[in-house]
């Protein structure tokens, strides 16, 4: 009956197609949760992605045991990470547009501020897109960790990697992205 549970259980053995059907649902739920959470946060606190994603999971997925197979969860988190990324990037874009005086005059309601400065996030998003072309697995690892707040162990399991490999990937990905973001900054502000 529940669409997410259905998609997940349907996909228990499938690979890779989950996000496209799951994403819109997870996206909407996360966006709502994020707005609620960001509105609640005190200044200086950060968005707790883990809690958000976890809550979205509880809300969207039936607690029936057969639905909660690990494979289903992996799909869910992949979708959640992607959704989270879109939410934040979208917010950052809008914020940037507003800052430059474009778009409309008044602040749209969803634009509840509690995240990184828009430029940082947009730069990261761009770098991550490039990185995904070069190395999709590591890019997914970053996405799971940074946007869905998964621990290195959980992210490793989602991607079918050993912990050691995941740590190695993570270190490399972080350096790669940092280097990219920094050199981008330098280009813009000589």
């Amino acid at each position, binding site marked *: 009956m*529940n669409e997410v549970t259905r998609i997940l259980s349907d996909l228990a053995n499938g690979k890779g197609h989950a996000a496209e059907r799951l994403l819109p649902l997870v996206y909407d739920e996360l966006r709502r949760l994020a707005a609620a959470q960001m509105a609640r946060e005190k200044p200086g606190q950060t968005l707790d992605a*883990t809690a958000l994603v976890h809550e979205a999971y509880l809300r969207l997925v039936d607690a029936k045991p057969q639905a909660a197979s690990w494979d289903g969860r992996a799909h869910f988190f992949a979708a959640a990470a992607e959704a989270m990324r879109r939410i934040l990037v979208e917010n950052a874009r809008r914020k940037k547009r507003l800052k430059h005086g474009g778009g409309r005059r008044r602040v749209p309601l969803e634009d509840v501020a509690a995240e990184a400065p828009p430029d940082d996030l947009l730069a990261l998003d761009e770098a991550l897109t490039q990185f995904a072309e070069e190395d999709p697995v590591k890019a997914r690892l970053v996405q799971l960790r940074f946007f869905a707040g998964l621990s290195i162990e959980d992210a490793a399991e989602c991607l079918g990697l050993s912990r050691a490999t995941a740590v190695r990937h993570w270190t490399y990905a*972080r350096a790669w992205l940092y280097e990219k973001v920094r050199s981008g900054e330098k280009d813009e502000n000589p």
Partner: protein
Amino acid sequence: MSPEADRVESIFAAALAKTSPEERATYLAEACADDDALRQRVDALLRASDEASGASFLTTPHTPAAAPPSEGPGTRIGPYKLLQKIGEGGMGVVYMADQEHPVRRRVALKVIKPGMDSAQVVARFEAERQALALMDHPNIARVLDAGTTDSGRPFFVMELVKGVPLTKFCDDDRLTPRGRLELFVPVCQALQHAHQKGIIHRDVKPSNVLVTLYDGKPVPKVIDFGVAKALHQPLTERTMFTAFGTAVGTLEYMSPEQAEVNALDVDTRSDVYSLGVLLYELLTGTTPLTRQRLREAAYAEVLRLIREEEPPRPSTRLTQSGEELPAISARRQTEPARLAKLLRGELDWIVMKALEKDRARRYEAASGLARDVERYLNDEAVEACPPSAGYRLRKFARKNRALLTTATAFALLLAVGVGAVTWQVADRRREREAAATKARQALQSALDEAEAALKADRPADVDTALDQADQRQLDADAHDLRERLASVKKDREMVRRLEKILEQRWSLSAKERTLDASGAKAQYAEAFRGYGLAVGDEPAEAIAEAVRPSRIAGVLIDGLGEWFFLDPKQPGLQTLLDKLDPNPFRSAVREALAADQPDRLRELVAKADGTQWTPGFAAALGLHSALPDPERRRILQTAWDSHPNSFSLALTMSLQPSGFFASRESAKELAGWCRTAIALRPRSAVAYFYLSRALWGSKDQDGRVRALRKVVQLAPEFARAHALLGTALVSKGDLDDALTPLRKAIELDPGNRTTHSTMAVALARKGDWHGAAESLRRARASLPEGRVDTAITDNNPDDSYEEGFLDGVPQILLTGSRIPIGLMQVGRPMEAFRFCQELRGLTTSDDFVYSDTNSYNAACAAALASSGQGLDAPPPAERPAVRQQGLKWLTADLAAWRKYAAADPVKKDQITHKTMNHWLTDPDLTSVRDEAELAKLPGEERAKWQHLWADVKSLRERTRPRELLPPPAGVK
């Protein structure tokens, strides 16, 4: 991954594994050999890696939560789910928590801190709980429950008091002394109640008296009986404790007996003393022993001061407060001189009686103090009296025992004591005789005050003075005074009326303002006519003659000006204003407006300097659409520089569109202007409304909610404010709190779809599917042509801001698609069916996610309802139609799945296959799938169902994966 990238990565990883810089350098030189580009790339990455970990790159802002503390937001204790921490004392932590059963409500949960659960602390904690449980008073937070956590630490649950400390509330709200006293009385009564139950609070101070709004009325609640002590019997066997010699309580509010080294002898009068300190602070802004003083003195000295030092009377303290005085007075909406005068006499006596060092001379009970304050408020003679000469002598004797012999002292006492009694009797009689004269004088001075305040545009002071005037009984022949009173009231009323027109316009969105212009014009015309100024009918000069000498001439001229800006062509208005306001510049501007010459207007304004603006004129022009933003800002800023006390300027500043650009700084600036406006006019709903708007995108959501609460308190009929308050609370997740304002908003403005959808969201999140469906239905009933897609285009950005829509219109769809599922889960498939029927008719979107899931869910609902399942099964006669509708939906969904599978056979087959499998096994559909069930249906319909299921099976077979992938490693 390209071979090249691969190589970079493996060298990078190997280099990182080297522990010393030397090793690393050697390795890199060797691994990269002559490949400079490679070496540069690896170096850059290594540097980035170092810097990235230094800069916590990718660890913020999306940090995975750290290991949770033993308790914290999110933890469950019994049926309670902890939300945020709201207080922390030495031994315990107080959380806001949600109780989930047997009732859903928000509570305060106090739990002993980990590591603090010593026997002593547990005893004290237990004592507090028992003490609270004994009491039942509207001004005391009630205990609802108690227990121990999984780790064995005790906790108890109290009514959640969402309030601010008494003194802060009074200052923030700029309560007058009278308002403060009115709030103080119930605090005394609460403590009286505790005293009657045998409980002494022992730590009465502002932060333990929280003021919260119930139905817009401030209600003080006494909290934290944390150091309370039972009077008659020990509340626990292990008497609670304050380690020997350590004073418990907060020094500023501590009674002399509590400051004794062995403070065992403490009774209810100790709380009376603390109440006295509280009252002292409410009136003067400082405690008798100031914080400053307490900070400077050593602990033993502090205790001595508490025991021995006579504090100055409140009125004396006030006059000594020097440069603080204007601020203190402003927070009490009273002129400095009047404030001191107000305190002198009765209030001084009441406070000083509560603050007696010798408790036998204090009020016997908290109720005595309350009664005396009430007597003062009712203009009755108070019980407290000035310390008599005899008393002062006694004090002198006590302090200088060595100098006086006992005998001399006794003789003196006796003589003076008799005299004092006689004097008091005579005084009572004289008092009665003087009452009439006193009333007249009081009225006269209240009227003087009111007139002065009217002229100075201090409306709050006018009201205070008029209140006082109204309380005076007038004798029959006081015609002159009565007339004067009526005339002042009429002026006040006019000020209020003009203000209201303006506020009403200010509270509208730009779009609505345009629509409303004609209404406002009529309101102005009517207001002035009602006041006796028939603009356009009478000659301008005659009207000008009437306006000039008025007490409120300034306000009238501003009002006429506002009206003119709305309607420059109103007959007679321009001439009248030219007479009343004969400034050549402003006349020229008016001319340009009346003649509809925007170019001329811009030209004039560009040349203007600060001296030519009046606040009203500048404020009106600052909103004029013919001028560009920067120009308007400049006008307002220039005008503000020379009129820094103008409410309308401050408010208009906060309306400047440039302020709405999303930069944090300008939002802050905006909020600043609003706060300035509030400081100038603390009762202005619109100023709070703007503040709530300014805070809207900020992190200070609590501040935003507070501002909105203030708006609804001040303007209870303002539907939009109720709606926004509800929306803000929903956004914060305070679902229960959100319902009241949302209901109120709907009551006031039943056709507002935004409010209905916000309500639907709130109810859906609470699990009230039925209510959510109902709200959503109402929301849609008000949509243009009842269509969601129209609403999406209709939802212009300006409106969505203005209306504070939670999440845009798609929310309707999303909530809509979840509601049928919720309804089925609560056993109401028929309602789900009806809902789907509406929802399906409403959306033309062929977005797969929405249409697919809705069709399937709708078909499930139809199957369940038509087979008589659930709590709301339709009568048998209606069932075939429901079932047939289900058939249509399922058929449509099947078509969608076919299309979906066809779009990408390789990728999508498995999903489709699984889905069809689900269809063939879903118990919800049994009644329309089982052969035995289908056999009961009429032949034609049966054939259709059979046909459908054959198609489902064939699609399942067609999409059957050739070989299922083996389950991935790690799956159980």
